[in-house]
Each structure stands twice: as C-alpha cells, then as structure tokens.
C-alpha cells in the first residue's frame, strides 16, 4: 500500500500571481490547529451584534437540499471534516488529519473527540459515517451526494477514524468532504437533512441558530462550546439578513443598520466613502454559466452556439460594467486554475465570424430566442449584455427572469433532476430544463465539481445535454490525474473541447466584493460566500 505523500492539489485562490499549488494538502492535514497550540481566544472583545446582508435563498437551508443563499446559514451552524479558507487552503476542522492511500482510492480521516453538537451531545465517527451515507442514500435526493464523486463508500474504522473507498483515484477528494461541499456538514446520527432540519439546525458550528425566517433574517448566538476555542466569535450574536438585491442593502449599511454586505457590485462598492467602509476582495473561479441545450431547440448546432459566444466583448464587459472586479474566462471553468493551458487561444468578439457561422448553420437572418434565469443583480446586468450582443447578429433575445419567492424558486425548482445523459426533456423554464439559461456558480477550490456535475454528459447538473465523448474523456482524465503534468494535459483537452462544442459560455470569473463598516475589523467571506470570520469591533 502506497501512501500519497506529495499529492499535488490545485486551488483557485486570490489572483493569478497568488495562485499556487498546495503541496501535499490533500495528503496530510495538520494535526493540531496552530491556534489551539498557543491557546487562548478572542472571546469577549465586542459583546454586540454583527449584522450582514447576504443574497436571497434559492431553497431551504437544509443539508440534503442545499441551494445558493442557504450556505451562509449552513456555514454558521455547521462544521465539516475539513474547512476551506478564503484563499482556498484546506484547514483541519472536525478531522484533525487525513491521508490518501492506494494511489488515491482510499482516504482515512482522524476525527476530533472534543466536538459537541448544539444539543450538547458529543460527535463521534458514527455521526460522520451516518452523515455521509445519508447523502449517498438516493431516496434522500441529496444535492451534495454527487459532489462526493461516484462509487464512494464510507465506513467507520474505530471511534475516531473513518475511511472512504473510491472506485477511481482522486487526489482532490479531501475537497469533496470539505466545507466547499457545504451540504455535508456533520449531522447527528439519525437526524434528517431535509426541511425538518431547519427547526433545530443541530450542527456543531460556531454559531447556534436562535431564529430563522426564510428569505428574511436568521439570528445566531455564538457557540461557547465550539471545539476550536480560537475561532469562537467575538460577537455574541450574528444576524444574517437577506436582501433580494445586495444594492438594496446599501442604505442599511450607510445608516449603520448592518455592518457588512457580501457580494456587492464592485462599482457600487467603489462609491462608498473609504473613510467609513473597507472592501475585501476574494477572486474566485465562480460566476455565471450560460448553457445552451445541445439536444433540443434552436441551439443544437454547435456553430450557432459558437456564434453567440463570438458576439460577446468579454474584456469590455469586465472592464466597464464589472469595473474590473472579475477575471476573464474562456468558456471553460479551467481558466482560474494554475494548470490551465495558457496556449489555448482566448475567444474574442468577432461579429463577422459569428455571422458567417449563422449563415453556415442556415439561420443567416437570426431568430428569436428566450434567455431564462432568475432575478439577481449580476444576472440582470449579464442578460442585458447578452441581449445587446446577440442583437448584432440578428438574434432577438427575450429575457425571462424568475423573481418568484425572492430567490428563483421556479428557476431552481428541480422538477427535472438529475439530468439524464442525452435527455430530450422539454423546456420547462427551469435551470435543468431550459434551452438557453444562466446559473450562478459560487467559487470552488478545485474544478472537479463543475466538471463532474455540470460539464460531463453523465453529470446530474448537466444543463446542456451535450454528449461529447472527447469532452467526457478529458474530464475523466482530469479527475483521475495525480500529477501536475497530467492535470495540465487534461485541462488543455477540456479547454479545447469546450471551445469546440461551446455547451456553456463562461465570460468571467467573479471577484467577490465585501464592504464592511470600519467599526468592525477582520470580516472575511470565503469563495462561496459564507462568512469565514465575523471579525471584532474596531
């Protein structure tokens, strides 16, 4: 049995110059957190309330039902085997150490013995095994199961050790059980992760839920029994207030009713006085993914899909509308990662070529097309960009954005789930059954989830229904590659196949902007938008 001593893991972190490989991060965790060694805590600095504005919920904040907007709540009350820091590094949490063996097909995690649920009971390896298996049980329809990868089993080794066995090697597996897989917070043995979980939110996180009103406000009190004493919040209470639009929270920030807004538009953040507020930026590999159905409708011809992609002036959009708070993407999710093949030519706006492609496809004069998604500031702006751009080649785009329930309830209804390879399911005006639509993806520390779930023909979140064996093979090669060279080769193949078929248009990778009052210092959010630290009073 060989132990992976030096597995290469790549992480999307803060900007190209700061991106790096974290050597061996996936192989061996640090046994004891540094803060615990030095002891002490920052408790007691403030004794007040920290309030922040977050995006609207797209669904219940329940482990099996995770949807965008709910992760902030889950992140507050939950703990994972491993945490992912805002810069993308793996940090020990419920697991103090982890080790990959058998060429990356077996992963063993050592569990802390001092973790307590909010109801006072102790966390054991049984809870960990139960949590994982509850997600893997298909009848629970967990949205987190697919993030674990196919063919995964989890067993208890002893009271403080659990083991995962994988069908295929995966050097990035620790990320799959980390806080980036935010539904996989450790639940108590026997607990249900469905909507009923919301009543108690019995997790092990540093915040305990006091009250929760969907799409309005969730109030938490700090957990003085949290196992990592150094991370116990200095604020006694935290309130997460949900706004349909982050911009709408600006008056509340200006008048001191809230302390922080996460995911504000950079251009809007720039208008706030620097003497009163500070910005924190987290470049991510997340952003808006615009899919085009390859199995039904008007976009089945790859030349038409490519033509649409060629109408977009990405650089101008990023510089102008986004105020530079984004990184250029090139219709694949690989651009943010260090193994991206930079020699693959970037797609640029080319109206003449786009028109020629339409002519070749037999739709020289364009056509009418409906672009669907849900109402959110960035999606509103992006759809205007697409509409304006497509007009240049005669494609008349009608924008249909779901504003129901304040958070895209119709758009993420999942009446079609999971995606079925090659499906010809009719357009139902929701994410996985729309001809031309946009989903927002938060940042991930590795591209594995995007590739496995969204890009691959067998993915459960495949909205484009493209069936391209060469793209699938490239994705498989990426997922199983254990060396940087192999990762890079696979990345190159994915990038090229993505440009060849254009199932999804990715224009930019967002830089998440948080604006916080100077009265509170040290506030940080991670790539996915969860509050990493609530800071202290200045």
């Amino acid at each position, binding site marked *: 049995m060989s132990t992976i001593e030096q597995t290469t893991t790549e992480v999307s972190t803060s900007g190209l110059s700061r991106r790096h490989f974290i050597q061996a991060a996936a192989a061996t965790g640090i046994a004891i957190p540094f803060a615990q060694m030095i002891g002490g805590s920052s408790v007691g600095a403030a004794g007040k309330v920290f309030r922040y504005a977050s995006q609207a919920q797209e669904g219940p904040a329940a482990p099996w039902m995770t949807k965008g907007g709910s992760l902030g709540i889950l992140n507050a009350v939950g703990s994972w085997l491993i945490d992912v820091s805002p810069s993308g590094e793996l940090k020990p949490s419920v697991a103090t150490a982890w080790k990959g063996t058998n060429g990356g097909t077996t992963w063993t995690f050592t569990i802390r013995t001092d973790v307590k649920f909010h109801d006072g009971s102790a966390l054991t390896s049984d809870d960990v095994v139960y949590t994982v298996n509850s997600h893997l049980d298909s009848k629970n329809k967990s949205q987190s199961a697919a993030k674990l990868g196919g063919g995964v089993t989890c067993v208890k080794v002893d009271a403080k050790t659990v083991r995962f066995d994988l069908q295929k090697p995966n050097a990035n597996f620790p990320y799959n059980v980390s806080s980036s897989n935010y539904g996989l917070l450790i639940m108590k043995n026997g607990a249900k992760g469905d909507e009923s979980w919301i009543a108690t939110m019995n997790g092990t996180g540093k915040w305990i839920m006091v009250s929760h009103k969907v799409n309005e406000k969730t109030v938490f009190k700090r957990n003085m029994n949290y196992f990592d004493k150094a991370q116990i919040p200095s604020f006694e209470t935290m309130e997460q207030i949900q706004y349909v639009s982050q*911009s709408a929270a600006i008056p509340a920030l200006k008048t001191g009713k809230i302390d922080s807004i996460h995911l504000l538009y950079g251009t809007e953040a720039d208008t706030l006085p620097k003497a009163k507020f500070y910005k924190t930026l987290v470049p991510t590999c997340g952003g808006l993914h615009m899919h085009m159905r390859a199995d039904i409708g008007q976009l089945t011809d790859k030349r038409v899909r490519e033509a649409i992609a060629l109408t977009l002036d990405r650089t101008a959009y990023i510089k102008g*509308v986004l105020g530079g708070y984004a990184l250029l993407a090139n219709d694949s999710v690989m651009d943010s990662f260090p193994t991206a093949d930079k020699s693959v030519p970037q797609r640029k706006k080319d109206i003449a070529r786009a028109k020629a492609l339409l002519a070749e496809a037999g739709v020289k004069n364009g056509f009418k097309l409906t672009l669907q998604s849900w109402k959110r500031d960035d999606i509103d702006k992006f759809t205007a960009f697409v509409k304006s751009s497509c007009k240049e080649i005669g494609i008349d785009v009608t924008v249909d954005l779901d504003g129901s329930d304040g958070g895209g309830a119709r758009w993420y209804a999942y009446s079609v789930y999971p995606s079925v390879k090659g499906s010809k399911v009719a357009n139902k005006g929701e994410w996985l059954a729309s001809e031309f639509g946009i989903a927002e993806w938060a940042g991930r520390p590795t591209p594995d989830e995007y590739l496995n779930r969204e890009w691959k023909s067998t993915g459960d979140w495949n909205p484009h229904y493209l069936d391209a064996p060469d793209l699938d093979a490239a994705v498989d090669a990426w997922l199983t590659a254990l060396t940087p060279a192999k990762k890079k080769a696979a990345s190159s193949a994915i990038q090229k196949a993505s440009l060849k078929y254009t199932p999804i248009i990715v224009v930019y990778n967002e830089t998440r902007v948080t604006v916080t009052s100077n009265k509170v210092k040290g506030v940080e959010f991670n790539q996915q938008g969860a509050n990493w630290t609530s800071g202290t009073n200045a």
Partner: protein
Amino acid sequence: MTDETAKQTKQTELSERLAVLKRNKAFIVGAAILCFWALSAIFGKLIARYDQDFMDYEYINSAPSGKYWFGTDSNGRDVYSRVIIGSRIILVISFLATLLGAFLGASLGLAAGYLKGKFDMILMRILEAISAIPVIIIALLAVAAIGRSSSIITVLIIGFIFTPNVARTVRAAVLGESELEYVAAAKLRTEKTAHILFREILPNVLPTLIVEFTVRLGYAIFAVATLSFLGAGLEAGSPDWGTQVADTWSLIFTDVWWPTLFPSLAIASVAVSINLISDALLEVFEL
C-alpha cells in the same frame, strides 16, 4: 321638437363645448404633453439617439452630458433613448387595458342601469366586491396564479380590474337616461334591447364614458409602471419605464440618480397630462 332639431341642438352644443375645451389651458398643456409622448411612442426609434440595448462600456453610470443627455445606466445604456422608446410600451399597454376596461365596464353598466332589478343588484354587489380589493393586490394575485407575466396578461389584468369602476359610473348615468322620453319612444318602436343600449343610450352617456376613460387611463399608467416595478409586468431589462425604475432605483444610494429620475419623471408627466385632460373634460361637459 323634432328629432332633426334635437340633433342639430346637440351638435351645436357639442361644438360650443369643444370650442371652450380648445381654450382651456389645462387641456392644452395636458394634450401637448400627451402628444409628445404619443409621438415618441410612434416615432421612438427615430427620435432616440441610440438603440435601446446598445451598451457603451466606456460610459457606465455616466452622468447627463452632451453625449448622453439623460446619462447612462449601470450597463452603459443611454437613458434618454430608453425613456423615449419605452414610452410606446407603457402607452400602448395602458391604452389597451383602459379600452378593455371601458368596453367591459360600459357594457355591464349599460345593462345594469337599463335592466335594473335583480340583475342590477347582483351584478353591482359582485363589482363592488371586486373593487374593494386594492388594484395592485389583485394584479399580483393574478400574475402569481397565472405564473407568468407578459404584455397581454398585463392588459387583461388591468382591463379586468378597471371594469367595475367604469361599470358603476356608466350605470349611474344610464339610470338617469333610461327614464327619458327617447328611451320610451324606442321601446314603443319595439327596438331590441341591444339597439336601445348601444344606439340610443350609449351616445348620450358618451361624455361620461370619455371622462371616465381618461381618468382610468391615468390610473392605468401608474398600474402598468407599478406592476413592472414589482417585477410582475414586462420582460426583464425592457425599456418600459417601470422596469427601468425597478432596475436602477438602488443606484440612488450610490449617487447615481439619473437612470431612475428620468423614467420616473416620464411616468409622472404622462399621468399629470391625462389628469389635466380629464379635469378639463369634466369642467367643459359639466359632469
């Protein structure tokens, strides 16, 4: 007095009232503003300086200037062009919705006022119940029930909502008219009910209906704008005024006020113009 003489007297009276109307300052101002927006609605694409969807990436949230008279929004789109082009959407939808409400309301009001009795009583109670619910609540409920919103749905919803008010106004006028001699004469001639309602009574309550129409048109402008503002109206990103206000209002807090102000002013100006016309008609026709 013969029928011919009565007709001539009515025509003279109408000419005199129209002459008075032409001299009414409120009417002149209201009509001028409405004409401007009507021309914008018809020739919007010619008057606008840019395409409604054109984005100038170098001028994001740019303040009013010589290049962009009303400034640009957060997508770099010309606010002036969008306000001009957007006038067609709101005017057409409001007009059609009011027309629908006036047609349905006038038909019901004529029938109720003429037939009276149980039909009148039951119909009026139903219409009163409908008009007791706030307009926007009904509209939002309807959009939620249908599950979608579009121009046609907006027209149908607002038309339906306006029906009770028009019906009540017309009914009140018909109650008085139905006792007059010309109605009795028509009955003696054994004219059909539809003939009496639409050929005899309707022309005589037309001034009332016209005034009611203008009042409702003013409300329709607000209703369409409000529905769009609430996201239950038209296509997202449309240059419709209500949608523009909805898309840009939060920018006010970042000192970018122009993308919200100008469409708001446009809504206000149309509503005021229609009210001025309506007031003038009330005055001139002594209703």
